């Protein structure tokens, strides 16, 4: 009596293992892409804070360190004066470094903290890239240099 029970148990175990394996395989096949998680899209928002000064022009350089990031689009800022897509080097292919700049001759200009640009990225791989910003130029409406702080997220 014991032997048939043991045999049944081992057969059951074997079937369960088989079913599990089949489920794993089936899951793998039904998933649309095995690398969906490996390729994803995200955006990097760049904020400048000019305090009480009006911001009329800016230029910064963005570096990506770690991970594999590629630029797939470049968007303007939240304020109407910087809503249009900024200038960049169209040959900035690798995406780990890009210079972005814009100006506005509008009468209404942003003060305080404002998002001036959004950079759309395609990230490949599990590693999360980090971004650094180097401010190169920030100007007020009369062309005078103004001090700002920068932030990206």
């Amino acid at each position, binding site marked *: 009596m014991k032997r048939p029970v043991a045999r049944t148990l081992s057969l059951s175990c074997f079937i369960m293992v088989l079913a599990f394996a089949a489920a794993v395989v089936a899951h793998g096949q039904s998933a649309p892409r095995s690398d969906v998680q490996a390729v994803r899209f995200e955006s990097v928002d760049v904020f400048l804070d000019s305090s009480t000064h009006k911001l009329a022009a800016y230029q910064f350089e963005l570096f990506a360190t770690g991970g594999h990031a590629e630029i797939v689009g470049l968007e303007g800022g939240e304020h109407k004066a910087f809503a249009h897509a900024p200038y960049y080097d169209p040959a900035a292919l690798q995406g780990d470094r*890009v210079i972005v700049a814009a100006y506005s001759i509008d009468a209404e200009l942003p003060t305080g903290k404002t998002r001036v640009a959004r950079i759309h990225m395609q990230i490949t791989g599990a590693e999360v890239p980090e971004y650094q910003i180097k401010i190169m130029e920030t*100007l007020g409406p009369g062309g005078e240099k103004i001090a700002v702080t920068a932030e990206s997220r």
Partner: protein
Amino acid sequence: MAKERDNLPDPLLARLRQAGTPQRSIPAEIDSAILQDAHAAIARRRRMRLFLRSSVGLAAAACVLLVVGLWSFMPGRNSNDINHDGRTTIADAFTLARKRAAGDNTITQERIDQVAYAAVHLDDGRGATR
């Protein structure tokens, strides 16, 4: 600036006219008469060539062309460095944009874009330091 004339020199034109005249069958007697005249013609052509060589200046002025297309500015050492601070940045484009907004119609939006693109150019690592 060269003298403005858009024509071939007359002697050359005459030769080309002669060369391009459609061929016709020529009676033998006329042919021989032409042959007799040929030496004289060759001599004339020699003189004409000499004349052509000696009037290179005239031919140079005569033969075509001049230059038009003259839009505005003369380049400095770096024509995109509008502020003359040794660099090209968005400040240079902004300077032009303010001038245009103030009514300077000699500055086109394309020119402003040109300077702005120069400012953001990556390529050789010089970036905006030019």
